């Protein structure tokens, strides 16, 4: 470029050579700054996109990490043998034992409304938890035990600092009296924050402090299994046919166009299809992972077919020729030689397709997988939620504790996606063959 400039300088047109040269220099400088500016625009675009990704991840972690700890309240529960029938331990009045222990800590509080406010510091399901524990371990009857109970959402928020106690009391969800009781509990060493295992072991609940993801994770697992079982063999069969056997004619062109179009159809349209055909016409059960998996399979199929065709195409023709040369039939070539060699590529594509299916929400909403279900599903025909629909339910819930739970659920979902994509990348690196 510089030699070009110099040659222009020698032979450039214009009135005065010096003047022209100065003009050229100016123009050249201007053009170079324009080039630099353009380059910076490009860099800024990438930095902005990466910055948005960082903002997204950071804001999710910031709001989500409190949900991984849970505040517990330790109470000394007296279980008098006179009031629990050892033959039928589940019939006793555990609410009373629990309340006796709790109110016993604050003998100065007498009025029932105030006492109810004390009870609001511990999760509403505490007495059932106590009952289940005693039923499981009947030897506890007749003694006094120190048992840790899940704190309620407001106390949890206060303990982890999500509620600012300096705020005027009408602007926070916990009253001054409750804060005083909390301070007393802390002074007695009864409050402790632990890792929130309930988040991973429990199903959904109306109370954020005991709501967990296990039901949604099993629901997603079942739906993905159905999706895999349906779409993987079908996708491979279609890819093998289209790549190895299909004649080039209008019919196969139509199939190809169809596959490409299906890959671009909005996911919600698949939901409408599932609702109208699977639920309404065939009468399959609503909210079932089976139906969710079937809809997801239809959506994943194009991805698997396209990945499968690419992988099969990458197998060199010499391998096919060699197999044909020793007398294999066309199908034997495909099943014994081409497909095994293409398998790593197909599996990589399948995992990526399944990861997409795992994050898919809209079609699952339409077939009712956003129901409120407090038990984990026992099979593919039982009502269930999935991870993304659980996120949607929690995001819609007004309780404050669900904000951080939603972020935590998203982090769990992203964790699964990173894992699946990581496996796909690893497989590509490990098994990729260059011919």
């Amino acid at each position, binding site marked *: 470029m510089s030699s070009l400039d110099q040659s222009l300088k020698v032979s450039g047109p214009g009135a005065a050579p010096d003047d022209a040269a100065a003009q050229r220099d100016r123009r050249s400088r201007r053009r170079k700054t*324009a080039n630099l500016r353009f*380059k910076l625009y*490009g860099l800024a675009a990438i930095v902005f996109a990466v910055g948005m*990704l960082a903002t997204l991840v950071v804001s999710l972690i910031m709001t989500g990490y409190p949900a991984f700890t849970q505040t517990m309240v330790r109470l000394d529960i007296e279980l008098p043998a006179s009031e629990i029938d050892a033959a039928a331990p589940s019939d006793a009045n555990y609410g009373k034992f629990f309340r006796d222990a709790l109110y016993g800590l604050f003998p100065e509080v007498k009025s029932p409304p105030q006492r109810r406010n004390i009870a609001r510091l511990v999760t509403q399901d505490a007495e059932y938890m106590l009952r289940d524990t005693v039923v499981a371990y009947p030897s506890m009857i007749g003694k006094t035990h120190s048992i840790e109970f899940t704190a309620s959402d407001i106390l949890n928020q206060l303990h982890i600092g999500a509620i600012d106690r300096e705020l005027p009391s009408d602007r926070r969800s916990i009253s001054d009296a409750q804060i005083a009781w909390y301070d007393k509990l802390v002074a007695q060493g009864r409050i402790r924050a632990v890792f929130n295992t309930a988040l991973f072991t429990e199903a959904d609940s109306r109370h954020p402090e005991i709501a967990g993801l296990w039901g949604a994770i099993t629901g997603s697992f079942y739906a993905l299994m159905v999706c895999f079982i349906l779409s993987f063999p079908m996708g491979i069969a*279609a890819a093998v046919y289209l790549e190895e056997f299909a004649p080039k004619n209008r019919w196969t062109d139509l199939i190809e166009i169809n596959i490409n179009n299906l890959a671009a159809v909005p996911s919600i349209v698949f939901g409408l299809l599932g609702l109208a055909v699977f639920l309404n016409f065939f009468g399959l059960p609503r909210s079932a992972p089976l139906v969710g998996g079937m809809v997801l399979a239809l959506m994943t199929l194009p991805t698997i077919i396209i990945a499968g065709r690419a992988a099969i195409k990458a197998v060199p023709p010499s391998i096919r020729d060699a197999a044909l040369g020793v007398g294999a039939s066309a199908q034997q070539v495909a099943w014994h030689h081409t497909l095994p060699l293409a398998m790593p590529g197909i599996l990589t594509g399948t995992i990526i397709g399944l990861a997409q299916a795992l*994050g898919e929400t809209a079609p699952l909403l339409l077939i009712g997988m956003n129901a409120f279900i407090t038990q984990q599903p026992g099979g593919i025909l039982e009502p269930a939620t999935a991870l993304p629909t659980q996120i949607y339910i929690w995001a819609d819930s007004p309780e404050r504790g669900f904000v951080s739970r939603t972020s935590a659920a998203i982090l769990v979902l992203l964790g699964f996606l990173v894992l699946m994509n990581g496996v796909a990348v690893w497989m590509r690196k490990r098994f990729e063959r260059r011919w």
Partner: protein
Amino acid sequence: MNYLTTTLVLLGLIALAFTLGRRRAPVRDATWVKTASHASPGYYGAYVALWCGLPCLILFLAWIALAPTVIDSLIVGTLPEQITAGKSSSELSLVKSQIHSLAAGQAFGEPDPALSEAAARYTEFEQVSRMALFVVILSLAILTTLFARSHIRQHFRARVYVERITTGILIACSTVAIVTTIGIVVSLLFESSRFFAAVPVHEFLFGLNWEPQIPIREGQVAATGAFGAIPVFVGTFVVSTVAMTISVPLGLMAAIYMSEYASRDFRKAAKPVLEILAGIPTIVYGFFAVLTIAPWMTEMGAKLGIGVAPNSAIAAGFVMGIMITPFISSLSDDALTAVPNSLRDGAAALGATQAETIRQVLLPAALPGIMGGVLLAVSRAIGETMIVVMAAGIAANLTLNPLEPVTTVTVQIVTLLIGDSSFDNPKTLAAFALGLVLFIMTLGINIVALQITRKYREKYE
């Protein structure tokens, strides 16, 4: 006798059929070249196993799919007159679901004795159906196995037949894509036609008022419902426009930098990051919009003295734009990379700077590919659901102002269908009409986009 037992028994029978066929294969003795067993024994086994399994599988699936409907209609037929008389199909489906929950043992209050009787009959019919399926499958499997086995003779060409059947299966699998498309079109058309029987097409397409309520009780005032979809279409347009204004410059500039300026190492590092952005589920973006972007925008608006609604089109559109950016950048990157180097060299030889080369040579050359990518992105923006469901409004609002809340086609589909499965009121059916419009729009855009990219590709290959 449940379906699982039937499946297991069927699998067992298939395995048995395989061994039967295999043992029936012609023996390859010393003279086998002359007596010519055509294929290896496995093919004989596979032949019999396929004959055993395929008809049963088809029957099994058809039975499972159709049995509930048949049983329901049988049950409704046996219901006493006073229950069924003068009931619309939705009331009947309510009765049916009552019977189902009674049969499942969930009774609320004191059920009608006629209904509990029907529930008992329902349980009985279901058991009979399962039993009948088991018996039919068993006998069909045995019959077909024996039939197939009797075919096998000395010169039987088992491999040819097996391969013919597998080819048939392969073809069937590859047509699933077509069947899906047909299923989408037919179900959307069918439900929409029912909707258009209640609401005229022109009112739906050109009406300015969208209030999809239906009267809950007879003679209710001011709730007849209005199904003019223009505000919904306009809302979709506004959100998509915001998204495209964000994502086209961002994506295009990112692609230009990546393909023309960036060093290999930078490319290697930045490309996966953009791909991560594309792989994040849309519900995550939706929550991000609600959690971070929308409050931030409202705050910014308040500082500037502009009122920005918390569920404004601009917040949803902005986040959607971020989501689409990697999509546009990767397609534009492909288009730019596909431009032959001779064009770059030619421009450089004329003394053009890189920016001039890109703007005046590469972009025009890559334009068809970029346009195709942008169109695909537009169709994505129109069909995107979760971001707008979470971050945009629900009430229809006929405005072009992106600072106000608007609603979109996808939001309406979701809100109309969530929690409501009765299929004979215009409110539910309207969702299918909207779905039909959405499908036609995205399909049209996709076809045009694919056409453009395909034409372009032919140019340089």
